[in-house]
C-alpha cells in the first residue's frame, strides 16, 4: 500500500486523531462514529495502515524529561569515519534516534538515560571510544504545543479518482 492509494477514511484516520484519542471503554467505536463506519472497519483499517508502515502506532507521546533524562547530542565526524562512528553510536541502547544531517556537525542523536549522571557517563564514554567530541544540547525550553502533525490534506475532499495529485507525494 502506497500513500497515493489512501482512501478518504484512511486520510481522516491519519490526520484527525493524532491527539484527543478517546479515553473511554470503546475508543475505536467513537472513531467509527465520527467516520460513519463500523468499529471493526476502523480496527481493520488501522491494522492495514500499520502493516503498510503508514501508522507507527496508536498510543501516547511521552513528554521528554518526565521519565528519565534525555538530550539531543551531536558530533562532527569526517565522511570517511562516519560509518565506524555510527556503529559505535547505534550500539548504545539508550540512543533512540540517530540522523545524519548535511552539516559539518553531521551526526545528531537522542540519548535517554535514567538520570543526568548516567547520561553524562554515556556521552563521556562515547567520546572516549570514538575519539570525537560530543556536543550535548539538552532542551531548556519547549515552545511548541504538540497536537500532532498536520498532513496538509486540503478540505473539502475531491472524489477518490482525483483524491491525491500524483505530485503531492513525489
Amino acid at each position, binding site marked *: 500500500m502506497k500513500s497515493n492509494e489512501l482512501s478518504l477514511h484512511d486520510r481522516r484516520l491519519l490526520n484527525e486523531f493524532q491527539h484527543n484519542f478517546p479515553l473511554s471503554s470503546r*475508543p475505536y467505536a467513537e472513531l467509527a462514529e465520527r467516520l460513519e463506519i463500523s468499529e471493526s472497519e476502523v480496527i481493520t483499517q488501522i491494522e492495514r495502515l500499520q502493516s503498510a*508502515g503508514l501508522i507507527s502506532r496508536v498510543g501516547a507521546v*511521552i513528554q521528554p524529561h518526565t521519565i528519565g533524562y534525555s538530550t539531543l547530542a551531536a558530533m562532527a565526524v569526517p565522511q570517511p569515519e562516519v560509518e565506524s562512528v555510527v556503529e559505535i553510536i547505534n550500539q548504545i541502547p539508550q540512543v533512540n534516534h540517530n540522523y545524519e544531517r548535511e552539516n559539518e556537525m553531521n551526526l545528531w542523536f537522542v540519548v535517554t538515560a535514567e538520570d543526568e549522571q548516567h547520561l553524562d557517563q554515556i556521552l563521556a564514554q562515547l567520546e572516549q571510544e570514538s575519539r570525537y567530541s560530543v556536543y550535548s544540547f*539538552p532542551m531548556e525550553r*519547549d*515552545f511548541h504545543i504538540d497536537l500532532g502533525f498536520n498532513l496538509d490534506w486540503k478540505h473539502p475532499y475531491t472524489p477518490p479518482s482525483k483524491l491525491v495529485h500524483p505530485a503531492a*507525494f513525489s
Partner: protein
Amino acid sequence: MDEINRKIIAATQNGLPLTPHPYSEVGNQIGVTAEVVMDRMQEMLDNGIIRRIGIIPNHYKLGFKSNGMTVWDVPDDQIDQLGEAVGQLEFVSHCYQRPRHLPDWPYNLFAMVHGKTRNEVFTKTEEIRTLLGDAVQAYEILFSKQILKKSGFRLQQTPQPPKEGL
C-alpha cells in the same frame, strides 16, 4: 512516577491493542481495571507526562521525505517571545531552546520543519526568518541525509541497573 503509571507506559509504548476494549486489555496485563488505566492516563495527560494520545502516523512513509532542522542564533533576552511565535507556526513540529556551544555552535533556537520536498522546507524556513526579523544573527538549515536509527522511547518493564560499557 509511581509503579502503576510506569507499568501503563511500559505496556502501551508499542501501541494500544487494536481490539474493541484496549484499556481493559492493558489493565489485564498489569493487574488493574480498565477504569484505573483510563484515569491514570488522563492524569498523566493533565500533568504533562503524556503530551497526547493518538494515532501516530509515519511522516516519512507518507511522503514528508525532507526534514530540515533549522537552527537560529537569537538574543537570549528575546528568546521567550520569539520561541513562542515560532512554536505556533503550523508547520513546525518541535521548537526548543537549547544551549549554545561557542565558538563552534552559536545557535540557541531549534525548530523542526517538515516538507515533501527540499523547496518546501526552504520556503517554510524563509517564513520563520521573516517572522524573526532583525533578531536573527545567524541561521542554518540542517537537512536530514539519512535515518541511521529510529526506535520509540523504550522504558524497561522494571527499572534496570545502569549498564556497564556502551
